[in-house]
């Protein structure tokens, strides 16, 4: 591999240099294609900038690697299990639409219109999360619209680093409000067993309207915890195989990309509050373990609330943030007609992160 790459290295480098100097010497070309070239070039080549002030050496971690770790975790955590449970065609088509619309159309057009000098890597993460939180058999245009909304919304807020709330969750909220019927149906039943050619490609043909939590609300049945953990219970495309999500989430924490305080406080507070509520009224509220393993809670705890931009910066405030997320999730799930509360809880706490942060800073520095 290294030998092959080293052969094409020099001619490719020369040509890229030539294209770069051509783009920079022609104003109109630069205006249209500068950012696209920069993004493509950034994947192949390193930066040419050097440190001008102290310290003169820098760590070998940049935002590309930071986002790359999240991408790897998401691929192992939901893409591979979903391919097995729902069929290759279902997953791959949704990924192509999501990336195509989100990154390669909307982000590129935005970079040209807004005259940005680079296309951000964060778009890949958002576009990989959008299909994960939609039903497996939702129409493809819905996925595309979701990805487009996520990227447009994030860019309007000022791009990566300035978005107040998680773009993927915001686009899901947008779709829930605009197309509630599409989000309540299309829950394909996961395939279990040794796949043959048909099931490998399409999965099972059975589609229901019910998710484990809506079943609990309607009939009071509790899906077995093992099937929830392994992913054989139905749910959104990316949230079913909780075991893979937990393992990759722990890997992310170990890589220090995700902050351990957030998942710990989220899981802990959901467990404690749902335990308290189920002691108060056993018949109407779900038991704590069912709360933890159902719905998008695991995906949210490891991949949504750990998104560093939308949480508080202060480490102690992260505990308040996680506990708040857990409390609102349990409240919404137990006492409203909504089938899933994690999304609303995280979005609400994203907004509340700003006052929590400034409050904790005021306490810490007594200003």
């Amino acid at each position, binding site marked *: 591999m290294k030998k092959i790459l080293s052969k094409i*290295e020099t001619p490719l480098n020369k040509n890229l240099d030539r294209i770069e100097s051509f783009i920079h010497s022609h104003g109109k070309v630069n205006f249209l294609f500068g950012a696209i070239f920069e993004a493509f070039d950034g994947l192949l080549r390193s930066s040419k900038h050097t440190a001008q002030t102290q*310290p003169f050496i820098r760590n070998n971690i940049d935002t590309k690697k930071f986002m790359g770790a999240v991408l790897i975790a998401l691929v192992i955590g939901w893409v591979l299990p979903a391919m097995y449970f729902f069929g290759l065609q279902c997953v791959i088509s949704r990924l192509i639409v999501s990336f195509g619309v989100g990154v390669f159309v909307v982000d590129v057009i935005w970079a040209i219109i807004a005259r940005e000098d680079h296309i951000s890597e964060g778009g890949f993460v958002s576009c990989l999360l959008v299909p994960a939180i939609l039903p497996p058999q939702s129409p493809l245009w819905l996925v595309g619209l979701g990805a487009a909304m996520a990227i447009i919304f994030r860019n309007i807020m000022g791009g990566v680093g300035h978005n107040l709330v998680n773009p993927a969750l915001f686009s899901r909220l947008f779709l829930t409000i605009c197309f509630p019927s599409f989000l309540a149906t299309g829950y394909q039943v996961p395939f279990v067993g040794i796949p043959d050619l048909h099931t490998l490609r399409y999965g099972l043909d059975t589609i229901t309207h019910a998710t484990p939590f809506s079943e609990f609300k309607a009939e009071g049945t509790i899906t077995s915890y093992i099937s929830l953990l392994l992913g054989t219970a139905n749910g959104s495309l990316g949230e079913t195989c909780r075991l893979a999500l937990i393992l990759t989430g722990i890997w992310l924490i170990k890589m220090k990309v995700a902050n351990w305080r957030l998942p710990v406080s989220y899981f802990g507070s959901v467990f404690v509050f749902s335990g308290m509520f189920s002691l108060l009224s056993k018949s109407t509220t779900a038991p704590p373990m069912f709360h933890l393993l159902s719905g998008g809670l695991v995906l949210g705890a490891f991949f949504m609330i750990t998104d560093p931009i939308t949480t508080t910066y202060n480490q102690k405030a992260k505990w308040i943030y996680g506990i708040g997320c857990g409390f609102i999730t349990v409240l919404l799930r137990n006492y409203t007609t909504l089938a899933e509360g994690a999304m609303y809880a995280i979005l609400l706490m994203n907004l509340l992160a700003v006052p929590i942060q400034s409050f904790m800073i005021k306490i810490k520095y007594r200003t």
Partner: protein
Amino acid sequence: MIKKKQNRVFKGGVNLFDTYSIPFCNIFEEISSDLPPELFNLALPDKQSVKHIIATLCPTEPWALPNWVILGHKTTVFLDKIKEIKTSLFPEAKCSVVISNNETEHISAAKEYAVANEWMEVFAIEAKYPHDDPVVLSKAILNREVNFGQDTLSQGILILDAQTISAIHKSRVLNDNVDSRFIALSGTGLKENEFINVQLGTSVEKIIKNRMKESARCRVFVNGPLRGKEINDFTQRIDWTVNNIVVLEVQDTKVMFPMINTDRLHFTTNLLGDVRACVYCNFCDDICPVNLEPALYYHCYKRGEKQRARLYNLEKCIECGLCSFVCPSKIELLRIIKECK
């Protein structure tokens, strides 16, 4: 009396030896000055003002001069030197010897020595940058608050490194002249990493002239690339404060496939990434040795409220540069902090 300080005394910091392992060759070369050499002349404080002596035998930067160059395997001989300095110069002072905890040989020898000598304490600490900083050391070992930029002597603390102790012993106790010191030369811009024994007053040019790689463009840093200064004027002369010289290649062209060609970017002045907006990743406050939140200063600075940044304990910053070092968005946090100050 042996105390093994726990890690919780120290906060943050990073072990640079894992990332930057610098192999030195063991041959020492002597370089003499063209001019008559200067003599080592450290103005020592008077007897009463020094209450504590901290001997730091724990260099935390991989390019700094290691202890074995001065100590060899004769730990007790060196500790005797400390004893003689103490008895003749600072009879009332207590002494703390700080040793890196992977030098087990020195630690066990010093432990034995400390049993017989009540005035001495031995601390084994992990060699994490910047835990040998005066502010961090006096806080962790003596629990004294020293402000950054303040002389530790005002609190009665005298911090000395191995080479300075040897020099003080030779010049004050034995009344001999000291006119040379050891310097570690390292970096990607040099043909070889080596130690030199150089006379004080030698110019930098004479030291690095035949040692630099001809092909590469290089930048020269005195006292390391993290805390040291870049020098462009090579006629500058070596004095006692120069511990090491690091020469780094300037990698200011794009490198193809940086994932597999890491060796071409490693230990150069390249930023190793593009400048982006802050993503609040918490790397900077995890690593900060004095428990600050550097991203707050960045956001104050960006909003144009430099005054406001001072409210967030800005004066406690020891300017170690680790926040800029780890930042994945490659923000120049240290420059911002200095401007806000």
